[in-house]
């Protein structure tokens, strides 16, 4: 085959991406299977496999999870449910609080130091407290996710309301909008556009909250699987869990991208052109 067909270009980006993935797994495989190449970093043949896991065993594990035993769906569902709840609750709270504080400057002035302090605090540290308050079930993971999502949404909404064009606002008032209608038809759409622009970040953080919460103490969820495997030094299962979480996060991100596109059709996209 001629080089010009293989040479990286716009057309074969996907092929190169997959090729790179294959190379990575191949290298991983060659370097970790005991005895395949002489050990050069570790003091014996089995140590590389012990620390990094072996791709074939990892895929075997994933195959068992999804097809043979089919027991991962329950855990995935729990993690997904926690993510969705954390995202939903965090967004609604952030939206409400952001609108309120942006529209009443006095309340914002009073609460300002508290919000700054809460945002500056490393909130993962709250996980043990949530576990005590809400138990080891879904609620404590959701609580952790909410604290992460809330601030992202809150700051975006706050900013969004502050930056509503004064002309659009004056125009809506001249058109006869009451205070309530301004909130519903001007502030809220403007704020939600900012929420959507932070959608990728906030969904990602909700996911982080769920997994970290599970990892710190739980009875189900993908984070729990990883925690269990780690307890028995089963590095293959830990790696399998990480791969599943990564793939899952990618799918989630793609879904968010879809939703964003559908909801934000009124916003201009860079370089957009359209046939009339």
């Amino acid at each position, binding site marked *: 085959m001629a080089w010009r067909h293989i040479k990286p270009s716009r057309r074969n980006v996907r092929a190169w991406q997959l090729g790179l993935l294959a190379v990575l797994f191949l290298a991983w495989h060659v370097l970790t299977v005991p005895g395949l190449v002489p050990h050069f970093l570790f003091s014996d043949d089995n140590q590389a496999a012990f620390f990094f896991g072996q791709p074939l065993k990892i895929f075997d594990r994933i195959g068992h999870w999804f097809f043979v035993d089919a027991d991962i769906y329950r855990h995935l569902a729990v993690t997904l449910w926690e993510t969705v709840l954390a995202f939903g609750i965090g967004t609604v709270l952030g939206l409400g609080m952001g609108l309120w504080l942006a529209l009443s400057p006095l309340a914002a002035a009073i609460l300002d130091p508290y919000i700054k302090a809460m945002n500056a605090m490393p909130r993962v540290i709250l996980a043990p407290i949530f576990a005590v308050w809400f138990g080891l079930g879904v609620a404590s993971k959701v609580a952790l996710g909410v604290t992460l999502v809330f601030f992202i949404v809150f700051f975006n909404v706050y900013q969004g309301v502050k930056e509503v*064009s004064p*002309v*659009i606002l*004056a*125009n*809506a*008032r*001249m*058109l*006869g*909008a*009451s205070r309530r*209608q301004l909130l519903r*038809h*001007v502030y809220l*759409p*403007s704020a939600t*556009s900012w929420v959507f622009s932070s959608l990728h970040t906030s969904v990602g953080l909700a996911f982080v909250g769920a997994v970290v919460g599970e990892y710190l103490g739980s009875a189900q969820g993908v984070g729990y699987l990883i925690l269990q495997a780690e307890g028995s030094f089963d590095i293959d299962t830990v790696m399998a869990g990480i791969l599943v979480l990564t793939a899952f996060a990618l799918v989630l991100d793609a879904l968010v991208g879809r939703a964003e596109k559908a909801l934000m*059709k*009124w*916003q*201009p996209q860079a370089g957009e052109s*359209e046939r009339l």
Partner: protein
Amino acid sequence: MSAAALNLDGVSCTFAGRDGAAGFTAVRDVTLAVEAGEFVSVVGPTGCGKSTLLNMAAGLLAPSTGAVRVFGAPLVGLNGRAGYMFQAESLMPWRTALGNVMAGLSFRGASQADARALATQWLQRVGLAAFGDRYPHQLSGGMRKRVSLAQTLVLDPDIILMDEPFSALDIQTRQLMENEVLDIWQGLSMAAGRGATSAGAHSPAPEQAGLSPLGAVSGASQAVRKAVLFITHDLDEAIAMSDRVVILSAGPGSRVVGEFRIDLERPRDVAEVRAAPRFVELHKAIWDVLRQEVLAGYQQQLDKVD
């Protein structure tokens, strides 16, 4: 004599200075009346407080001294009888063109169906019937201005306030829009003149009145015509469109320094009327007054830089 549609009575507007600095007086002691059905333009050098004047007329800004009266009644809060066309982009970007035109109607409690029907009519009237489902960013600058025009006029205001509405448009689009505004304005007066009831003012004129025989225009009742207060820095535009041109002095503390009645015949074509001898005469007379103010304003800006 019945009360003017809009009456600015010795209004001044001083913006409070920051941190105890002296306040900035944008306009000082301006008295200006716009009769019902009259088209009045305000011209003046940049930064002379033209927009401030309009914001006071709209009730968006309370005058520091003096009073604003609307059809004889003192203005409290927003001016509910006025429609305002802004200089900057004022459409809600999250609403379609139709949604934007419907906005005012639904804010004021019209049913969704009524609002849609009337808004569709108005979109048609400004030549955008096929673009109702477009979002503002999908429309050209001229189209957005048309939507703004429909958005303002669909509410059937008695007073129309316009703040350099076409300043961002290219010259061809601008003249088209100017003619269109004049046509619609004359059409509105026609509709109001023919329909004796208030409902008559709501429905668009059966045909473009600006193009109909002159006799019909003179038959229109002056009392129910829409008053227009039009702000511009373009003297040509002001003369071509108005019944009266008011000149503001250079700021700060602008006041009225001249007033000219434009006795050109209507209906007018803004491009053609510029060649009329009377137009040239008026232009020269007004420019003689305006030039000094423009130079004064320019000098002040230079002084600030030094």
